[in-house]
């Protein structure tokens, strides 16, 4: 672009000016990189007490990173011209992600390989693979992971209910707007509030209204959190109550985007309500459905708040989720090193699991279409 606008510069001159600009860019980048590493080494030396420079905090390294990031952007433009300008639009986001996501994750990995209990006077100590070994031997962790399988499977039930409600709200029913808002209300509540309002008050087994009602209906001992499966089901029900509206609203948006003429064509073609759903509506909704289910599974894998507040994982770990287990490891035992190992390990499992789901979903959708 700039070459066509500035014909005053001869090709030879342009080439040389470009060359010098590129050289300057490389020089700038090298200088900034050297600065970054020098500050890093100085900080490490200072922190280890090898050299006393008198640095109070790690802030100089942070500033050096910002300077290096700015130099990297500028150097891209200088070295690569227009391509560099394009890169400069993406680079800030990349550098920010590196600083805020990648670095903490990697640093967390370091913590995961240390023995670090907040209540211990000794502080942090590298302990190799000890945390990983105890993780593999930890039956509570594997128990929580097994519970996650049940919780994830419950998403399918939630999906079926949400789809039904979305169909209902999409139909020509009376007071449709009222029901739309009413069905959305649970989504607007904080799960913590839900745990106390419902799990701890409404379902309290001595005086809770739900328990009282159940007794009136002839259930002798309506302790909703007493046996493993009952407790798990109660937690799932509360979780469903909060998250079904979210799925429902996405599915409703999908339903409303379906072309009416196709549904009318099915009607003229003689499809009954059920056939029209099975043959037309459901297949056309598959992309939305997959998105909804995958999103919800990702959320479900992080389920913790309701469990922590209502059952704290009990009875006997029956309702424990991995997140609530990690929470207890941090909060009750102050075991930061092991807790971080659990979190990092769980992150790896989630990444693999979700990647597999996405892969499977895209392959399945391709076959369907």
């Amino acid at each position, binding site marked *: 672009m700039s070459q066509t606008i500035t014909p005053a510069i001869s090709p030879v001159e342009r080439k040389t000016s470009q060359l010098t600009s590129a050289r300057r860019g490389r020089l700038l980048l090298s200088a900034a990189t050297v600065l970054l590493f020098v500050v890093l080494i100085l900080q490490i030396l200072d922190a280890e007490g090898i050299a006393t420079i008198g640095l109070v905090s790690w802030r100089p390294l942070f500033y050096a990173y910002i300077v290096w990031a700015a130099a990297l952007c500028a150097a891209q433009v200088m070295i690569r011209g227009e391509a560099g300008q394009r890169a400069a639009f993406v680079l800030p986001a990349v550098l920010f992600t590196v600083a805020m996501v990648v670095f903490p994750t990697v640093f967390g990995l370091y913590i995961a390989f240390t023995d670090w209990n907040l209540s211990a006077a000794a502080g942090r100590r590298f302990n190799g693979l000890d945390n990983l070994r105890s993780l593999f031997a930890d039956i509570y962790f594997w128990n929580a992971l097994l519970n996650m399988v049940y919780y994830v499977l419950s998403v399918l039930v939630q999906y079926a209910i949400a789809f039904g409600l979305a169909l209902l709200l999409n139909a020509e029913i009376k007071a449709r707007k009222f029901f739309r808002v009413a069905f959305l209300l649970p989504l607007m509540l904080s799960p913590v509030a839900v745990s106390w309002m419902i799990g701890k008050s409404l379902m309290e087994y001595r005086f809770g209204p739900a328990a009282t009602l159940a007794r009136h209906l002839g259930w002798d001992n309506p302790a909703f959190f007493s046996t493993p499966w009952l407790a798990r089901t109660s937690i799932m029900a509360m979780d469903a109550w909060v998250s079904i509206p979210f799925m429902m609203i996405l599915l409703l948006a999908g339903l409303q985007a379906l*072309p009416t*003429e*196709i549904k*009318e*064509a*099915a*009607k*003229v*073609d*003689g*499809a*009954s309500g059920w*056939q029209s759903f099975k*043959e*037309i509506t459901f*297949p*056309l909704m*598959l992309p939305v459905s997959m998105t909804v289910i995958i999103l919800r599974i990702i959320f479900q894998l992080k389920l913790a708040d309701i469990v922590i507040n209502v059952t704290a994982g009990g009875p006997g770990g029956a309702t424990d989720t991995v997140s609530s287990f990690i929470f207890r490891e941090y909060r009750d035992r102050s075991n930061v090193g092991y807790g971080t190992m659990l979190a990092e390990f769980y992150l790896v499992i989630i990444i693999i699991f979700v990647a597999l789901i996405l892969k499977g979903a895209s392959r399945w959708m391709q076959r*369907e*279409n």
Partner: protein
Amino acid sequence: MASMNIVNVGKAYGSLTVIHGVSVEIPDGEFVVLVGPSGCGKSTLLRMVAGLEPITFGDIRIDGKVVNDLPPKDRDIAMVFQSYALYPHKTVAENMGFALKMRGETKADIDARVRKAAEILDLVPYLARYPRQLSGGQRQRVAMGRAIVRDPKVFLFDEPLSNLDAKLRVQMRAEIKELQRRLATTMIYVTHDQVEAMTMADRIVVLRDGRVEQIGSPLTLYDKPANTFVAGFIGSPSMNLIKGHIRAVGEPFFVTHEGIRLPLARAPSGSDGKPAYYGIRPEHFTLGGEVSAEVTVVESTGSETQVFARLGQQKIIGVFRDRVEEPLDHVIAMTPNAALVHLFDGESGLRLD
């Protein structure tokens, strides 16, 4: 194959009546075109026939049986939608066989009938494809195939050609007409395009604002339009409607508002001095004669020339086989053929005969 009776059918949304008692009788095997400007209620009427829209009053009968409250699937009709409404996740064969599958027919039977319909429509090579892999014209044909596979009593078409380009539209027009002749099934076809209506219909129903303006064969509508609306709507370019008065004393003639005298072959009795419209089709002018007009635009298509001119203050159009190379703003002599003049009442717009 069936006859259809639409008896005084109307549609109201609350207090707003959009169709005011339309009656059309369609004998078995006839091709009827509903035509009118957009918003005239033609699509609503078709959807009421299909059962997609409830009827407010009146009766719709298929083969003498009232179907007002029957759902679409029990009316034994097939419909081709403007957007084709093909099922995007089904192949061409599945699209065409869907209605048969819903009816619970055997797979072998469905395959055989789909194949037969595909042969009629030249769709055999595309049976395994999905709608998105087809061109507009092929999709249109699949939509028709979906209708003919079922062998319904009545075919309904809702502006099926309006998404096609001009050339394909002309071609599909002929194909649909030929298909109708071959299947000899009753068809109701909705369009806003009067050329489509003229070329395809056995009979045309002209609608305006939810009322029937005229029902008749294409040439009846062309030769004897019942009112100024039909006169202006049917034919392209439209008929010239010149305001003025009839003079019936002695040799009849017509005087425009500006006092220009136009020839008349005859005048209805007792119409002397009556305000009226002088209707003359553009192709019924001849060059020369005693009437002259001021040329504003000349458009030549090669085979014919359209002359836009001013007769007094009123705009008129003439179409001529001859080349006209009259400079603009010049006066050209163009005289109406007195035998082919239509007269309409100046107030009601109804035909005077």
